[in-house]
């Protein structure tokens, strides 16, 4: 009966985090090696896993996240296999291995709890992006999973002459050593009611990567789920 579904059986675990298909994340949890994941992102688990929403440690680090609403993270601990997904968004798994990455808050799916992380507000941008842009900077030895609506594209900033400009709604993540600044691209004439639709961008310069999703939908789908 389940033969037609045979191709979808989980592959054996080979790493802490793996993709199952494009849109699902599989995490092998162990005791003492906790995971922080988006609240509501769990779709299945196998084994003994416990969830603690808004744990005190997170509250402290992310105390000013989302104006005190509480961080949308839960701590997952125990032994088992955990499957996470975010409304069919593509999942990108990264083994940091000492690197760092700066992730847009809505595009963060899960990361190892022992990583060094902090929440920061993107400088210079909050004043025009309506929602303000929060990002999480993560570094250390461990794994991070990001979500992207549609298959992302990674652009090398090249460290060259030209800056790379990104629509903040489409931005997923970037290398933390890039210089970021906001940029208004509209001119005086376009202020009169008819902009090009691209009123502001974020400009990146320096050496590093920028990850962009092919969608400008930045709504936080998981937030409504609680």
């Amino acid at each position, binding site marked *: 009966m*389940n033969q037609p*579904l*045979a*191709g*979808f*059986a*989980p*592959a*054996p*675990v*080979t*790493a*802490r985090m*793996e*993709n*199952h298909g*494009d849109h*699902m994340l599989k995490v*092998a949890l162990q*005791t*003492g*090696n906790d995971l922080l994941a988006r609240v509501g992102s769990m779709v299945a688990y196998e*084994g003994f896993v416990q969830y603690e929403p808004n744990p005190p440690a997170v509250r402290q680090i992310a105390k000013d996240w989302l104006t005190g609403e509480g961080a949308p993270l839960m701590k997952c601990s125990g032994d*088992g296999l955990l499957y996470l997904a975010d409304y069919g968004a593509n999942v990108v*798994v*990264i*083994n*940091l*291995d*000492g*690197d760092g*990455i700066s992730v847009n808050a809505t595009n963060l799916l899960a990361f190892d709890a*022992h*990583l060094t992380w902090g929440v920061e507000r993107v400088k210079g941008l909050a004043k025009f992006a309506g929602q303000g842009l929060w990002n999480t900077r993560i570094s250390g030895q461990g794994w991070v999973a990001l979500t992207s*609506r*549609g*298959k*992302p*594209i*990674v*652009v*090398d900033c090249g460290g060259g002459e*030209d800056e*790379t*400009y*990104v629509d903040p709604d*489409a931005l997923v993540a970037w290398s933390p050593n890039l210089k970021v600044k906001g940029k208004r*691209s509209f001119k005086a004439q*376009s202020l009169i009611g008819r902009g*090009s*639709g*691209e009123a502001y961008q974020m400009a990146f310069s320096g*050496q*590093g*990567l920028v990850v*962009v*999703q*092919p*969608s400008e*939908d930045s709504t936080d789908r998981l937030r409504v789920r609680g």
Partner: protein
Amino acid sequence: MAREFQRGHKARISDLTAGTDLYVGVQISAPGLTFDISCFGLDADERLSDDRYFVFFNQPKSPEEAIQLLGSQAGDTESFRVTLDKIPQQIQKLSFTATIDGAGQMSQIVPGYIRIVAGGEEVARYSFNGAEFSTERAVMLGDFYLKDVWRFAAVGQGFDGGLDALLRNFGGEVAEEEPAAPQQPQSGAAPGFAPPAQAAAPPVFAPPAPDASVPAPAPAPASQPAQGFTPPPAPAPAPAPAVHAQPTIIAPVNTPPGSPAQPPPPPGYAQPGPPGHAQQPAAPSAPLPPGYAQPHAPQAPQAPAPPPGYGQQPPAAPPGYGQQPPYGQVPGPSGAPGAPSQYGVPQGAPQGGAGVTAALQKFKEAPTGQRWTQQNKKLVRVDLGVGGDQPVLARQGSMVLYQGKVDFSYKGAGFAGRIVGNATGQEMQLMRCSGKGQVFLAEEATMLHPIELQGDAICVSAENVLAFDETLHYEVRRIEGHGIPGGALYTMQFQGTGTIIVKTHGAPVVLPVTPTTFADCNAVVAWSAAAQVVVSSQVRMRRNAYAGDTGESVNLQFRGAPGNFIVVQPYEV
């Protein structure tokens, strides 16, 4: 991410996926022909020394169920389930073949493929089409072969003689010259296929196979009994020509051609960096800045030895869930940052090397010299300044990223244009992108399709246009018909020389226009302008049966010369 294989390409399965429970799908079809798709389990001498490993429609699985025929599903003409770690030792190669049942030749086939799916994800695909073949009646599509580890090779070699020639090539003997040969193994004795010695020793196969119908990874011990096999006796002495060696020679291979056996992997092959990407033909070649290349370099010496922790389990042995220490042998909080090797990716894991750069390698932008480049299904890059300095008009807000000096300005439709746009609903909110640089365009993760117009014309409804060259002319066209709310339908017609990017929600279907081609006016995205559109209301209107309009009210019928097409999306606006 599926790797596209070309004829002759080879790869280690462990580079494609960490799983060993694989699904192999074959799609092959030709008008009026039927195909027998089978899998030959061959020994080290490439002989079918045991006919129980000839898996086909009459023998849907091998004795220990390592190879199972699953039938037609999910778009595949035939599919198999292959559990690599259950394959007994003497089987060194699985050859997937397709033969035409009856008259016909391989040049008639329409484009097809053989693909490998593991863990719910297609990991490899070799596409072929009839142009690669001529009068052959059988074709060897792809091989799994054991050379230290299991590997996959895209073969694509035809055989003139059909199934019997194929069988003879594999050392089997065909008693009678009919294509009915495959029926033979069912008779039980099957003297033609196997040296009797092997067939006479069935008890060797006795180890109880675990229940293979469970798709979950089989417990690790399953592969152990295989070692109990006595090595098969020497195969039948018939010195068949080493036809199988040919694919490696004729094919445009990266590895040096030669013996049928895969040459020992060159040192670069074994590099643990991002193995899957290094070999990928389409791998982005943008050189990384030196500082970025480093993170995975130190990983190199580490990988050949299986790292402790998760890596301790060889990929062949799935973690015994529910057995003793679940999920890796390292209990306790030693997983702190101090012990990085615990997270070491076992060699050949899909993630390749470690570090941000390596993990993101597969999403790198694909540089081309062209004006329009599709980066992936949902993202397109336009290189302003290539192919003339014309600006590009794009839907407002569709820019996700740009590099270089690009100017975005409002593109008004003009007074008349706005009147028309308001009246017809075919209004586009556009911006003009000009200057020099690269602009990446995408919108709401819709699929994008660049269509190059060379003097011809296409009709697209305005909300499905993402961007187009400013050189194209466009106008609103009216489709009249009774029964349409509002009296008429409107569409945009684009004409000239240039590229237009059409977006669809979901993968669209492109239908050729035949005398009976209909489409829902809400789902149709585009059609070639030479096709004539007629409004038909064939489906009965049931407008007031319930609250809300449930009937399919307005259909468009298309007529036109052959060569016209329509594009329909799986989404009704």
